[in-house]
């Protein structure tokens, strides 16, 4: 019987405390069914991809600094392929891998479950993602990609099909992981934890998983048709020699509204970090849940693809673009009020708070830029503003996820990540997002060619900052692991159930049965009860 076949309460009762498996080998990694080990596979891959995509971003930005092209990649096809890989890498590889990694580790603990639902399927999703990424990257390097501009050889045409296969595997793996995560939140919550008492990060993962479940299958449907067409159909999507029709058919997944799904977990991370830093309950937990839910509704994107006629001029597309700002603004306002209630903070802010608030502001900028983009008279669709929105939203997600990694580091790997390094990492990523996002939007406005040239260099500087940020995360994790400092079970006096377990987290997560949960902040309930008991006794 697997752990998921027992109710959480029973599983918790029957679980002996077992030390987390240190430095598991490849066999253990391949066969594990522990959600923390599976989550670490996603996180490691996500960090590796972040570093790779950030470096690729520098090369793409360098290419963009010259009107004639800096010829970094050696040919117009290669430039176009690498730009495609960079966009797909940022939106479909880096952010989903980091999001699913963090969620796979934290969400089961937050909802009081002993493991993720369908742990073997979750492990299969992680390894399927690895294989999909490998196929995609290798095939693009072999001359594949999403079509070609100036002709391809026979081998390169096959590589294009391989790229699409890899993309499909990546999407299917994300979907499988989403099914596991969403099922965990829906059916494995501890007794007493109604849906409205779900911690905000777990809720945001349920919402974003649902949005991906509604969106990514439509991408897979596109890929099925394109691949069958290339294998023997009438070439509806153009002969891969000299056409961008394949990319045109799938690029809606890299644009708003579909790209806004990346920002939903950010709202959950902010909502998890802020009350802990403030040491108080959220002033409106239900309001924040509603804001995250609305953000999810506005991020469903399969309908907006050009194949269903050009939706971009239609009222619904414009409404989605304009309204996307509202839930982000509402979420930031409610979190700010919670912080304000706690009074001013003295000294350096913890890295996770800086990251959370910075991510929130970047998301606001991203959705704001998206709102500008859909306003017809600005004529920004199909310009640099497309990339501006993607950079702001995707790097908002990266900053938010980095903040989450700093916040939950003790539960992820049993170590504490250094605060000073964290502040540097957050500032690096925030700077990268602002420079790349704002510069792309300004290029979209096309005020003057001289300004556009200057902005291309600003993008280049932003891309370098992104590489520094990625290196900062990797080196912080490496040094924290080496230092061996033990952060304690609950270093931040957290409010939700993941802080009720010991560090490192044992297999089965919880030692003994959990008490019935009565609010969204069960550990704060316990602390308040202890305070009131002490007050009564004295």
């Amino acid at each position, binding site marked *: 019987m697997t752990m*998921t*076949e*027992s*109710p*959480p*309460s029973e599983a918790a009762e029957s679980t002996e405390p077992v030390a987390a498996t240190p430095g598991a080998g490849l066999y253990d990694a391949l066969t594990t069914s522990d959600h923390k080990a599976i989550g670490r596979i996603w996180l490691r891959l996500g960090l590796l991809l972040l570093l790779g995509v950030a470096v690729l971003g520098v090369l793409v930005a360098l290419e963009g600094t010259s009107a004639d092209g800096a010829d970094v990649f050696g040919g117009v096809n290669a430039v176009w392929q690498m730009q495609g890989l960079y966009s797909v890498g940022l939106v479909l590889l880096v952010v989903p891998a980091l999001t699913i990694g963090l969620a796979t580790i934290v969400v089961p603990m937050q909802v009081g479950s002993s493991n993720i*639902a*369908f742990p073997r399927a979750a492990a299969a999703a992680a390894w399927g993602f690895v294989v999909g990424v490998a196929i995609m990257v290798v095939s693009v390097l072999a001359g594949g990609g999403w079509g070609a501009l100036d002709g391809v050889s026979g081998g390169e045409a096959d590589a294009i099909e391989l790229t699409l296969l890899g993309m499909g595997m990546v999407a299917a793996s994300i*979907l499988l992981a*989403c*099914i*596991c995560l*969403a*099922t965990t939140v*829906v*059916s*494995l919550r501890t*007794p007493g934890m109604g849906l409205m008492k779900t911690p905000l990060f777990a809720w945001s993962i349920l919402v974003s*998983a649902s949005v991906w*479940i*509604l*969106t990514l*299958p*439509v*991408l*897979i*449907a*596109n890929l*099925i*048709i394109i691949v*069958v*067409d290339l294998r*023997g*159909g*009438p070439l*509806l999507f153009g002969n891969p020699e000299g056409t961008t029709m394949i990319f045109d058919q799938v690029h809606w997944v890299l644009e708003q509204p579909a790209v806004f799904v990346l920002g939903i977990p950010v709202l959950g991370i902010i909502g998890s970090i802020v009350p802990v830093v403030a040491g108080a309950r959220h002033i409106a937990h239900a309001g924040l849940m509603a804001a995250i839910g609305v953000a999810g509704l506005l991020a469903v994107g*399969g309908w907006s693809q050009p*194949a*269903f*006629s050009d939706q971009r001029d239609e009222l619904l597309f414009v409404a989605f673009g304009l309204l996307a700002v509202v839930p982000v603004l509402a979420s930031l306002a409610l979190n700010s009020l919670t912080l304000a209630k706690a009074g001013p903070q003295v000294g350096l802010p913890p890295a996770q708070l800086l990251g959370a608030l910075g991510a929130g502001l970047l998301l606001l900028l991203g959705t704001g830029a998206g709102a500008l983009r859909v306003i017809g008279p600005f004529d920004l669709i199909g310009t640099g503003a497309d990339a501006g929105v993607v950079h702001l939203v995707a790097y908002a997600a990266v900053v938010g996820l980095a903040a989450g990694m700093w916040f939950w580091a003790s539960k992820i790997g049993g170590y504490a990540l250094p605060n000073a390094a964290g502040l540097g990492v957050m500032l690096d990523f925030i700077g990268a997002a602002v420079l790349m996002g704002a510069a792309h939007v300004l290029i979209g406005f096309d005020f003057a060619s001289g300004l556009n040239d200057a902005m291309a260099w600003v993008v280049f500087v932003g891309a370098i900052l992104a590489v520094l940020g990625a290196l900062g995360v990797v080196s912080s994790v490496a040094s924290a692991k080496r230092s061996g400092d033990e952060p304690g079970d609950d270093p931040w006096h957290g409010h939700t159930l993941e802080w009720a377990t010991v560090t490192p987290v044992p297999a089965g997560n919880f030692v003994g049965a959990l008490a019935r949960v009565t609010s969204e902040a069960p550990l704060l309930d316990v602390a308040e009860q202890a305070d009131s008991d002490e007050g009564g006794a004295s």
Partner: protein
Amino acid sequence: MTATARLPSPALRRPRTVLVGTLFASATAAMVYFGVLALYVSRRAEARLLGIEWFPEGVVELGPSGWIFWTLIMSSFTVQWAVQAIRNEDRPNAYVALGLTMLFGAAVFNQMWFILNDTGFALDASEAQFLFFVLNGTFITFLILAMAFLFLTALRAMFGQYSPRQNDGVPAAAMFWHTVAAMYWVTWIAVYVTK
């Protein structure tokens, strides 16, 4: 008050993980299929706007596709019969119902194969014929998946799993089956009736 009413309440049911997971998986499958169908319908609308004939008159007949429609309706009843039987711990009825459902599935597969041959369509002949193949191919894939799910569920039931209080697998397989049936019902109207 009867004696049984004074008994302590039963222990909490185990979380319906398989059922919830299948709900999300069914949603995923439906979105893949309806994504393909939406592309089919939008390309057909574009062709009509340009005055291009989509299918030659009389090639795609309503009769054989209608038989699939009715067979899937019957299969939805039989799969629910299996759910009810397993809830009542009536295993012989459950096995018969699961077997009948799979038989209906095989009949649908056979009829679909007949349609693909009967039309004489070729994959690379035209956009309409290509998309017809892709749509039906995607449906057949999901039909096979649903039949495999039912088969595994039947095997597990035969080996003693599932009970009136522990029967998630059968309703889960039934839910996926209904989803696949619903895919076809929408297709029947959007592709075969409206052509």
